[in-house]
Structures are given as C-alpha cells and as structure tokens.
C-alpha cells in the first residue's frame, strides 16, 4: 500500500459536491430497499388503482368531478408525506442504530452534505412518484391535468413547502423511536390518522368539525386542499369548507411548518443514540 502523506492536503472536496454524491447514495438506498420502495414510493399508485377502480365512474355530487380526480389530489399530497416524513422518520432511526450515522460522523464529510442528501433524495423520489401517479391517472382514470400556468405554479410551491416542512419534521421525529424496529409502528399510524382526518380518503367537508379543526393544525390538510386547487376546476371551490381555495392561508400554514420543522430538527436531531457519547 502506498504511504500516507507526510503533510495533509487541506483541499477538501466541496460540501456541494459531497451533497450531490450523498443524493446518489440515498436514492440507491431508497429504491433498492424493498420496504421503502413499496411503502414510501409505490403506495400512492396502489391506492389510486384500488380506490380508482372501486369508485370508478362515481362523481362528487352535481359537480361532474370524478372521484378519481378528487382522489389523485389527496394521493399527491400523501406522496409528499410518504417520501419525506414517513421515509425519514423510519429510515434515520435505522441509520442511527446500524452504525451508518456513526460511520459518516467519523469521516471528513461536512454535516450539511448529509442533509443535502436527504432533501435531494426526497425531492427526486417525489418528482418520480408524481410523474408515475399522474401517468397512471391519465391513462386509466381519465384524470385531467391542470390547464393554467397559475395552477402549475401553485403545484410547484405547494410541493416545495410541503416537502421542506415534512422533511424537517421527519428528521426531527427520527429521535422519537427508541428502537429502529418500532419506528414504523409509531410513524405509520400518525400518517394514517392525518390522511383520514385531512380529506385524503373522504371528502373533507363531510368530516365532523372537530376532526376538521384537528387536521387544520397539520400540513397534510393544507397540502391536500392546495392539490385540490391544482387538480379540480374552480366550480369545486363551493365544496370547500371555507368556500374558497385559501391559497394565502395554505402558504402561511406550510411556511410556519417549515420554520417549526427547522427548529424541531435543530433541537432534536441526534447523530448518536441516546446513551452514547
């Protein structure tokens, strides 16, 4: 083996380059892990196929909007939660337990590169998921795509705010499970409860008001509502509880969750297990 350097070359690889390198590794791990590929990536597609087939041809009241059109908005919003919060809140405890984080901590990797890797993985996985989801919807369930630039623009900012807030919350939540094995048993019910109360599976306006109030505290309700603006015609606005799309409020709540998520992640994220170090 060749000799080590007498003097260390101080020119370390840039954090940006390593962040990109992390994204590639994160994506390999995300897609190659069967559990992650099914529950974080494929699930919205499965659910769209199941619900789209069961409620095939049904419309929401007299609006002429198909159930599938309504449901695809909820599935895209859920996809944000799956690829970011659910994904990270389950996988980071495992990384903490199996020595992955400790190994990284022992290298000259800048810590920021790790988080860049997570964010890059989440965004890439989400984009791929949305493309497939929309393709399936258009091909089999006559989903109509948004026709105005306004709606596509809203689609982008709602997705970005949603992904950032839920990614940060997932990073923060990753310190909650005591054992990696129990993480999914803790995270999955949270995601399910949010989905049931946020108008993903049922029409939001049909839910009891206390449930609506509860859901309003969390991002998913606003993500789902925002995606309804993107995918439903303006005539559907009448079905909203507020009677309007409430885009400014959606932006406000999601932005608050980005800030809250950042604070929680900074306060609670740990590289090592409790009791170590």
């Amino acid at each position, binding site marked *: *083996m*060749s*000799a*080590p*350097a007498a003097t*260390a*070359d*101080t*020119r*370390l*690889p840039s954090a940006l*380059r*390593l962040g990109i*390198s992390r994204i*590639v*590794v994160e994506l*390999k*791990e995300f897609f*190659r*892990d069967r559990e992650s590929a099914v529950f974080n990536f494929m699930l919205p597609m499965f659910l769209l196929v199941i619900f789209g087939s069961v409620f095939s041809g049904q419309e929401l009241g007299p609006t002429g909007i198909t159930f599938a059109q309504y449901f695809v908005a909820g599935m895209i919003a859920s996809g944000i939660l799956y690829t970011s919060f659910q994904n990270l809140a389950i996988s980071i405890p495992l*990384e903490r337990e*199996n*020595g*992955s984080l*400790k*190994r990284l*901590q*022992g*290298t*000259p*990797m*800048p810590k920021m590169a790790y988080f860049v890797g997570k964010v890059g993985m989440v965004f890439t996985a989400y984009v791929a998921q949305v493309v497939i989801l929309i393709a399936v919807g258009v091909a089999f369930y006559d989903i109509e795509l948004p026709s105005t630039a306004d709606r596509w623009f809203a689609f982008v900012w709602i997705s970005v705010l949603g992904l950032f807030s839920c990614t940060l919350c997932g990073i923060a939540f990753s310190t909650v499970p005591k054992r990696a094995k129990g993480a999914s048993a803790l995270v999955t019910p949270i995601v399910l409860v949010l989905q049931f109360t946020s108008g993903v599976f049922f029409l939001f306006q049909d839910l009891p008001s206390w449930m609506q109030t509860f859901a309003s505290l969390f991002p998913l309700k606003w993500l789902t509502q925002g995606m309804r603006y993107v995918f439903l015609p303006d005539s559907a606005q009448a079905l909203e509880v507020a009677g309007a799309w409430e885009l400014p409020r959606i932006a406000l709540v999601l932005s608050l969750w980005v800030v809250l998520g950042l604070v929680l992640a900074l306060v609670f994220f740990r590289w*090592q297990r409790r009791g*170590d*170090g």
Partner: protein
Amino acid sequence: MTSAIRVRGLTKHYGDLAAVDGIDLDVEVGECVALLGPNGAGKTTTVEILEGYRQRDSGDVEVLGHDPHHRDRVWRARLGIVLQSASDLADVTVAEAVAHFAAYFPRPRDVGEVIEAVGLAEKRDTRGDKLSGGQRRRLDVALGIIGRPELLFLDEPTTGFDPEARRGFWELIRSLQDGGTTIVLTTHYLDEAEALADRVGVISRGRLLEIGPPETLGGRSELTAAVSWREDGEVRIEHTDHPTGLVRDLADRFGGEVPELSVTRPTLEEVYLSLVGEAALEADS
C-alpha cells in the same frame, strides 16, 4: 520521534462508574499499539474519545496534534476509523460504497486497489447485506483506509474471521504499517496483538495496567522458562531460570537429539490473564 497520540490523566464517568480512570498513553508516529482488556474495561470508551466521538471528563488528549473534541474536517481527513460491528450499507455494492467514501477525502487511495487489498475483488458488485460477516468486516476496513489515513483506529477488526481470513487481514495491516501508517488496535485475540503490535497495552477497570512490547510485557522475558522433553515414556517438565544450561545437560545425557524437546516462556495470554486477574483482586479487596 513524534507522538501521533498523547494522553495524560484521561477520565470518563458514566454516572458513578469510572469507565476511564486516569489513563496515560503515548503512541509514536508509525507505531502499532494494541489495547487488550476484558469487555467493559474501557477500551472502546478510550478509543472513542481519541476518535472524537465522546467527550472526556478530564485529562489532556492530543491526536495528530489536535484535541479531538475540537475536530474539524482537515483533521478528520487524516484519520481512518473502523468501528465495532456495523450493518449499514445493506443496499449498496462494495464498489459503490468504497467509491462513495473515497469522495470524502482529499487524497484517497485507488478504489480498485483498496478493494483488492482487503480481498473483496470478487465481491465488488455484491451488496452489503449479501456479504458474509468476515467480508462485511473487510468492507469496514476498506472504508477505514480509503482516505489514506495517517492514523488508523481498528476496534476489534477480526471478530468473526476464520483463521485464514485473519492471516490475510494481518498481512494487510502489516503492509499499512510498512507504508508508515500509525495504528491503534483493540482486540480480544492475544495472538493478533502479538502478531501485529509493536507495543501492547492492557486495560482493566478503566486503567492502563501495563504497556510494552509483547515479548517483554509483564516481565515476560525474564520469567521462569519451562523445559519439557520425553524420557522413559513420560513427559518431563522442569521450570528453570537457566533453560540453556538445562538443554545442554539434556543434550549431553541423551548424546544427541532430546525427544520432544521444547522450551517455553509464559505466553502473552498467561501474562495478560495474570495482569487482569491481579487488577481484579486488588479492586475487590
């Protein structure tokens, strides 16, 4: 000679337990030091303080001229760390993992060369979760040396290796030593310490009981030798401070070859066990 590691009065407590209870240690550049000791003796805690993973309670620590507590990236790039058992990297291949970790360092070794050196050339496209225990450990070592470290920490590197794999691993470590790498090794295998280390330190109950070359540890080289041979159909053993004289007498008596002759000093294991045993007795009394 310059020190790669300099430790004075190191302590670390967990609650009431003194995991490290006043350790002094110097490791010279280019040296290989093995730390031996029972489980829970404080080996891993000591090493993890040196690696910058844990904070000490008191004492002075310098690793490659810096306090590991104030570690930065430049310092980290000069270190190689092989931790105890890890099970990460399940979904990436050997080649992908080594190439990825190479990217963290300013002057990494050649990826193919390192994979070859740890004996994983045939497994380069195998994912982590499909490797055997020994192969996984060799991947850990590959990731530890890919950055061309000046100082390499190995925490129980060969646990779970078969004897042949262990010999292969020793060869690899010797080649790193020949290249000038400073090595700190913790192990449960005394033959490993004896084969690799310039000096062996015995840690028990948070204290460094003794440190020295394996052949003189615990006054080993001056201890009574045991001479054994076969005579009249039975094995005879005699303990003596003058084995050479005894062997000469035996040679004269047998008029040539002495049947089954052997001269042994206490093994490193015997010295180690007596050191650790004494420490335990002292602590209990």
